[in-house]
């Protein structure tokens, strides 16, 4: 205990968030001299900023909580209250308003300099400072601390002032609402909507703007600030770049709420290194959360664990590590459970290591992340010959082969996949149905990784992305063209292959170019159009999994048509050389291609014959139906506007219609109402905190009951088909309405005196998966105007049978 002499504490914990509190509590419980330093006057600053009464979740729910502090699902107030009690009862050494300016020294003797010249020494330091604390700056000419603030301490301080609030986040909105009481508030929003706001805030702010309590400028930004005397008598005049040009506003105060970034500077000042320069990069950590600086540990959001429960567990674990106790991570038992199917009761860590070693894909993942991944994943040990997934299933998980082999049966052929590699990436990437059936081989062990987890990994890990892409290309080529080609040759071809990403509308190649590459659509979709009677006619639609450009390769001629990306699209292209190689090794490939080419030529000719079909097609593509998998279309020459479809939808879905018949564009009597298209890569699935949005095997995207009403999906859907709905008013029996008009009648659920801020849940079209006989909207249409179809059938629309 020599160190104890010249160190005030054994552990200094920075940041009284969930992690910090938990660590401190654990230290206190273990009787370790410690200090918990919190820069703000309250604990759990981040949670404090939550909107009032927010429902705080305890994800991952499977994970047990192992902290002396209590924590369970509940309202923000309840959670904070419990922690406050816990902090008191645990007798932890907690210091408010103690902001750490710098950390120097090394293990055993760290010096923490607090603002206000005080210095604390500690043997070990635990950084539990979340991501809050250093706001993004406004950074415009004329900016002065006097006129530009980044926080709002107390709304009551201001009255009768003109205040500009910059930002569209919750903080900005909450400030604006608070200030609007006594001031004239102008909100400056960089976008044309409040995409980052929580649903409650959103409705509140929109209502305020509608009522003109708050003036809002969309697509606007602060251009410059001119302070000093002026006619208006206000301290400064702010010039805004608005959608309608510049606007000058005499202003008292500007409050910028532009979110926060990781306090990287501070962290790096402590000597901690980041792997790359991405803004969202995470410091490299050991399994015991120790950073590259011995003695400094990083937990919580800063360490890449945004979830409360994780941070709290880490708080406990890190202290135990420091005490020298080997703690099994909280997820140990869960993982052990998962690995039970493997039979051999090997140590979890070893199994994990084996897995990482066995599967190259995983070898690039850092151990902690891999644990996370495994927690989400499942381990299968299917019987030999049993089906892993069926052709045309709508599942989109990725499988890795831990041991044994599997067989892909694409058509008559059987392609084996060896140990250590993975499969299912097609479904994962294209978001379309499975392209083949996969059968388990002799005693194989598979790891199934859910789409969400995998996408997270791909997004954050470039190597993983590369591996998957390569595999995808190889498989795509193999299954499409070259089942019998030896891998060596395949490798060459793949080497020549390229991955392209096109934004919606981008040209892949245009009529008259030299055709040298064949494009295989990986995700999204393409439209093929041709110049005819000096205007462009769309002649066909190429969904993910199909390819274009083979004509160019075969004939080596010029492109006969222009190909565009209907939506954001990824393609894999093979060059002529590579393709020639394939055709050498694949007898009959040429014939096959020529046959398909003939078919396509015929189809194109037919389509050109009836240009309006092409027009309809391009119209539909313009509506973003390129990424759809199932669309509701209304033939307005049949639709009598009875709105029975909406009513039916409302009636079959707790009183809220998931479709808006009238809204949406029309072309040549084809009307695209506002209704879910069940995109191949649903935008709504992004950022769903409880991961409540799923795609069922039949293909429909649905929202599970564990929706918490955060409203992310509503904002993320570019087609506005998701709404936040509250509980409907009770309905009398139908006959009472028919006879006496006792309401609410069919579809008239809107409760006039329903509280707009009441807890709502996201609702969207689920294709009436609960009902027999298909979507209610279609079945309720008396005239047959409403139909739901797959994009593959769009070309039939123009046909007059």
């Amino acid at each position, binding site marked *: 205990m020599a160190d104890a002499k010249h160190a005030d504490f054994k552990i200094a914990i920075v940041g009284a968030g969930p992690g910090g509190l938990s660590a401190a509590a654990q230290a206190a419980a273990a009787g370790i001299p410690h200090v918990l330093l919190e820069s703000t006057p309250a604990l759990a600053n981040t949670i404090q900023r939550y909107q009032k009464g927010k429902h705080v979740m305890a994800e991952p729910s499977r994970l047990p909580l192992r902290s002396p502090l209590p924590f369970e699902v509940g309202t923000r107030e309840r959670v904070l209250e419990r922690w406050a009690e816990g902090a008191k009862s645990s007798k932890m050494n907690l210091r408010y308003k103690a902001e750490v300016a710098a950390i120097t020294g090394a293990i055993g003797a760290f010096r923490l300099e607090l603002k206000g010249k005080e210095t604390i020494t500690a043997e070990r330091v635990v950084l539990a400072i979340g991501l809050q604390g250093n706001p993004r700056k406004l950074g415009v000419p004329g900016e002065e601390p006097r006129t530009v603030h980044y926080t709002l301490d107390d709304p009551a301080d201001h009255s009768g002032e003109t205040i500009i609030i910059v930002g569209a986040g919750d903080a900005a909105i909450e400030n604006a609402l608070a200030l609007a009481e006594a001031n004239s508030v102008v909100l400056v929003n960089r976008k044309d909507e409040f995409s980052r706001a929580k649903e409650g805030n959103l409705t509140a702010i929109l209502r305020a703007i509608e009522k003109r309590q708050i003036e809002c400028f969309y697509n606007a930004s602060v251009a410059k600030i001119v302070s000093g005397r002026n006619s208006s008598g206000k301290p400064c005049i702010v010039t805004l770049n608005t959608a309608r040009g510049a606007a000058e506003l005499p202003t008292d105060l500007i409050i910028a709420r532009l979110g926060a970034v990781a306090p990287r500077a501070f962290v790096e000042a402590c000597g901690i290194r980041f792997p790359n320069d991405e803004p969202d990069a995470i410091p490299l950590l050991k399994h015991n959360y120790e950073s590259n600086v011995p003695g400094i540990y990083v937990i919580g959001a800063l360490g890449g664990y945004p979830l409360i429960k994780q941070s709290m567990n880490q708080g406990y674990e890190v202290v135990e590590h420091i005490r020298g106790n080997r703690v099994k991570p909280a997820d140990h038992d869960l993982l052990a459970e998962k690995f039970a199917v493997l039979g051999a009761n090997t140590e979890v860590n070893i199994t994990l290591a084996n897995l990482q070693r066995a599967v190259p894909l995983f070898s690039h993942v850092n151990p902690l992340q891999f644990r996370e991944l495994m927690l989400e994943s499942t381990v299968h040990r299917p019987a030999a010959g049993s089906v892993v997934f069926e052709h045309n299933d709508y599942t989109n998980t990725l499988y890795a082969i831990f041991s044994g082999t599997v067989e892909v049966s694409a058509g008559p052929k059987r392609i084996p996949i060896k140990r250590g590699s993975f499969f299912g990436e097609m479904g994962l990437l294209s978001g379309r149905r499975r392209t083949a059936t996969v059968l388990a081989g002799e005693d194989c062990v598979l790891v199934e990784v859910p789409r969400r987890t995998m996408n997270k990994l791909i997004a954050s890990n470039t190597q993983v992305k590369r591996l998957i892409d390569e595999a995808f290309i190889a498989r795509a080529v193999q299954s499409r063209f070259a089942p019998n080609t030896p891998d060596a040759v395949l490798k060459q071809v793949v080497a020549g292959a390229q991955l392209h990403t096109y934004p919606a509308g981008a040209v892949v190649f245009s009529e008259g170019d030299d055709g040298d590459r064949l494009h295989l659509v990986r995700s999204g979709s393409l439209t093929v159009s041709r110049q005819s009677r000096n205007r462009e006619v769309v002649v066909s639609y190429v969904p993910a999994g199909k390819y274009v450009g083979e004509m160019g390769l075969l004939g080596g001629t010029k492109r006969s048509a222009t190909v565009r990306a209907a939506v954001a699209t990824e393609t894999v292209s093979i060059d002529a050389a590579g393709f020639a190689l394939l055709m050498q090794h694949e007898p009959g490939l040429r014939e096959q291609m020529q046959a398909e080419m003939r078919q396509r030529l015929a189809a194109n000719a037919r389509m050109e014959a009836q240009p309006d079909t092409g027009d309809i097609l391009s119209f539909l593509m313009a509506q973003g139906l390129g990424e759809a998998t199932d669309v509701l*279309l209304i*033939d*307005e*020459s*049949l*639709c*009598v*506007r009875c709105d*029975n479809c909406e*009513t*039916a939808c409302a*009636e*079959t879905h707790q009183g809220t219609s998931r479709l808006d018949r*009238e*809204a949406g*564009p*029309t072309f040549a*009597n084809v009307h695209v109402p506002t209704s879910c298209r069940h995109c191949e890569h649903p935008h709504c699935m992004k950022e769903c905190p409880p991961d409540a949005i799923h795609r069922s095997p039949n293909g429909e995207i649905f929202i599970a009951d564990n929706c918490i009403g955060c409203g992310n999906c509503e904002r993320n859907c570019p087609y506005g088909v998701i709404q936040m709905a509250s509980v409907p008013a009770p309905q009398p029996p*139908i*006959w009472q309405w*028919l006879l006496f008009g006792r309401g609410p009648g*069919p579809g008239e659920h809107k409760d006039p005196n329903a509280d707009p801020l009441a807890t709502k849940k996201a609702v969207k079209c689920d294709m009436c998966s609960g*009902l*027999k*006989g298909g979507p*209610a909207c*279609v*079945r*309720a*249409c*008396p*005239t*047959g*105007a409403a*139909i739901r*179809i797959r994009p593959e*059938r769009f*070309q*039939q*629309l123009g*046909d*007059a*049978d």
Partner: protein
Amino acid sequence: MQRLHFSFLEYRRSRFLWVAVLITVAALIAYARDDAGEPPSGGTTLGYALGILGALLILWLLAYGLRRRSYHASWTTAQGWLSAHVYLGLALVVIVTLHTGFQFGWNVHTFAYALLLLVVASGCWGVWAYLQLPRLITDARGGLTRADMAQQILELDRRALTLARAVSMDVHRWVSSAIEGARTSGGAWAQLRAKDMSTMVIDRNGTAASVPNVDQYTLTELLADLTSRASDAKLASQLQDLLALVSAKVTLMQRMRRDLRLQGLVEMWLLFHVPLSLALLAALIAHVFAVLYYW
């Protein structure tokens, strides 16, 4: 490739047309080959049979109103029901006519029969409306939803008000009172005739008077007059802009009224069909009651 959309008449290759034809032919044959030893009427065995069949059909056809609103019904589609509703409704005429045995008179029974014919006639009108009007509606809308039009009108109003304020207080009063008095819709009759019920308030020697303002005519007149007498160029151009806004609004309002009118026409036949069907139900009850009461 065959079409994706089928009207309710073509539902499942018009299967219900054939059902209806079948029933009709069967009824006709039975009627032709019937030997009752008495003149044909509702009283013969066949008469009763046809009568019961007809009554059941009527009840079933009435049930369509319920089926259309029972959205959880999993088997059959509303389209199928409508298709059947139309075709069997037509077959009903034949069946009931045979039921009468062409014995008519000034009595409840013939009254019920007449009602039936009226109901079916209004139904045919409905079929026509359902097949013809939707296209017109689409054309009339010109790709705008009614909400869009309202929004645009609102926007025009805002700009007009601003402009008007810039011109003079009087003009502002005209414009705002015209906005105040603008009407796109109205009573059923107004809707069907697409009549403009708009009014505005003008200043008649010091007192406010509300005058009709069809297609903003009054307002336009006032503004035009002012423009012609406008002294400086700025004022003139402002008034020009104002007039432009007003005429734009007029176009929108006309389009909106036309839309409402078509919508009304699509619904109008129901104003006859439904109440008459209910009357028919009543008459049917009376008919059956009378027959049984004086058996």
